[in-house]
């Protein structure tokens, strides 16, 4: 295989009449690399995956997968790739084994080979006990695992995962992460996954590409991206945003220790060289101007801050998905109807997390050093904390179990 498993040059895709889903997108994924495409809904993540997996055509550009042009040799590309789409393509009325066998048959594999591969994959994904049950009896997490297993039946070199853990509970998500990581380390699989969970991109991928409005905004390892915002981030929350607060943000920008600032709702994100030093200075500045600050939070930059910097909008504020015309939502060209359902389940996730956050705040967060966003800003996940996101997950499990 070439040095690059995936090579996209100047890829443009326009959905009629004139919605530019991908805008001269460039992206290269090295062989045996895990790359995360991180972006809000409607950023072009799924479209990119669909083009790469030969499901969608495109208007201009060049797309090479495994050294093959998807336009010239789509069938050869299909043999090289495994695809796990956002909606599980699993047939619910068949058993797990039947699903896997059918997929193997569709890849023209020999019957013996299919059987060997099924037992191999079932063992790997801990599915052996469930293999002969009808899929309707499976839980969401197991369905996902079966979905990934069927996508691997023909031993692909490259795996596409479109929002692999969307709608899953935290335990299933962690199990899935482990599997995905091992697929890469043990078998050298190149994995391109899309996600809008920051912690997922952070913990799974070698490199993260932040995508928005059909373009790659920045690309690098999670640490590189975080370091690209030098220093710390301070979030100043207000009860309301009025003239005074606007004036404060203007004043703050004048200070030489503040490098950058962005408003997100009632929160003012400030990027400073040394957080510990600037917090008292900011408090002084506020009290001198008689502005009431609700809370002040100091943190190491997270991927969210990176996202904020490169797209001007926070991952944490819910992004409105551009709604298509009614007929397009049904068109199945991206699963409009189902996508809606997924999004709903996602928002209930958020509610759950918010509910948890309250208890959390009471228990262990002191508002002077750390800030937990106010109630009208739903979170996508991790606290803005100095700890690595992965370390905070066990805590979340605790409150999950309680509720």
């Amino acid at each position: 295989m070439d040095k690059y498993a995936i090579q996209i040059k100047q890829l443009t895709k326009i959905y009629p009449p004139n919605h530019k889903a991908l805008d001269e997108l460039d992206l290269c994924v090295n062989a045996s690399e895990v790359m995360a495409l991180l972006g809000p809904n409607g950023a072009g993540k799924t479209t990119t995956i669909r083009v790469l997996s030969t499901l969608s055509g495109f208007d201009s550009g060049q797309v090479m997968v495994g050294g093959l042009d998807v336009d010239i040799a789509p069938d050869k590309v299909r043999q090289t790739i495994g695809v796990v789409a956002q909606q599980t393509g699993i047939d619910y009325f068949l058993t797990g084994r039947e699903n896997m066998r059918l997929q193997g048959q569709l890849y023209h594999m020999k019957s013996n080979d299919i059987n060997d591969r099924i037992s191999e994959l079932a063992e790997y994904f801990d599915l052996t006990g469930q293999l002969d049950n009808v899929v309707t009896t499976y839980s969401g997490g197991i369905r996902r695992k079966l979905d990934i297993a069927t996508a691997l039946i023909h031993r692909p070199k490259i795996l596409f995962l479109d929002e692999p853990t969307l709608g899953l509970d935290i335990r299933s998500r962690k199990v899935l992460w482990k599997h995905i990581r091992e697929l890469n380390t043990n078998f050298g699989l190149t994995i391109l996954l899309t996600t809008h969970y920051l912690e997922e991109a952070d913990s799974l991928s070698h490199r993260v590409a932040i995508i928005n409005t059909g373009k790659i905004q920045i690309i690098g390892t999670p640490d590189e991206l975080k370091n690209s915002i030098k220093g710390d981030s301070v979030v100043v929350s207000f009860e309301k945003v009025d003239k005074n607060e606007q004036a404060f943000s203007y004043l703050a920008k004048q200070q030489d220790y503040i490098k950058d600032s962005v408003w997100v709702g009632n929160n003012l994100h400030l990027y400073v060289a040394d957080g510990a030093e600037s917090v008292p200075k900011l408090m002084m500045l506020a009290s001198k101007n008689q502005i009431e600050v609700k809370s002040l939070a100091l943190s190491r930059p997270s991927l969210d801050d990176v996202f904020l910097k490169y797209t001007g909008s926070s991952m944490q504020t819910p992004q409105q998905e551009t709604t298509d015309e009614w007929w397009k939502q049904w068109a199945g060209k991206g699963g409009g109807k189902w996508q809606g359902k997924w999004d709903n389940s996602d928002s209930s996730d958020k509610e759950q997390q918010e509910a948890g956050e309250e208890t959390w705040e009471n228990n262990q967060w002191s508002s002077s050093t750390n800030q937990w966003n106010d109630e009208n800003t739903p979170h996508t996940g991790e606290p803005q904390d100095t700890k690595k996101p992965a370390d905070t997950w066990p805590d979340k499990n605790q409150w999950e179990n309680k509720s």
Partner: protein
Amino acid sequence: MIADTWHLFNKYMRITIRMPLWSLFTLIQPLIWLLIFAQLFRNFVQLPGTDGNNYMEFMIPGILIMTVLFGSSWSGVSLLREITSGTVDKMLVAPVSRVAIVLSRVLHSAVQVITQSIIILIVAWIFGGITTINLFYLLLGMIIVFLLGVAFASLSNGFAITLQREEPLVMIGNLMTLPLMFLSSAFVPKHFMPDWIQVIALINPISYAVEAIRTVFIDTPDMAVFLKGFVIVLIFSGAALTWAVTAFNSLRD
């Protein structure tokens, strides 16, 4: 392509066999017609101009056609479901023949209506609607049933792909089945119809299918009528299938 079609066909058959009740539900309406309407209109044959035979006997080919239309015209609904649930995408990312995806669905539908037709025939036989059964002619009749099943399943799948939405598809399914049936000689002899309906019946492929089936179910079949019906239904189903396959191939966005 043949292997792909076979594997997918197997999958659909397996799902159908796993839910036998579903197939029975589509049988309810033809059975109601067979048992109630045939009784209701039994004296119809005593009107001048009919041959005075058993009306049930006259009606059975019509009921068979009805079974075919009701059984196969909803094939597209499940295609839409498979598109929205991502099952079709899962097939499409594999190097599977695109034709096989449509073909397997249509074949499955046609085989399903043959099974249903045989059940209807058994019921009709129990109620005395059929007096003589010749296996060879039964087979000929089933060929017509099969082709018509292919035709309407293809139309339904084609409309599913072009409309991309369930409600209008169901509406078109209704529009296709009932009027086409009444505008054919399924339930009344042709010379009973007003002139304008006769004209429509003349270009309605269902008329020819009905007549082809009707002729093989009587004592002395007229093979010319059967062949005419066979050829017309064959062309009709071929055209419908081609359209559905073309529509499916253009699905790529």
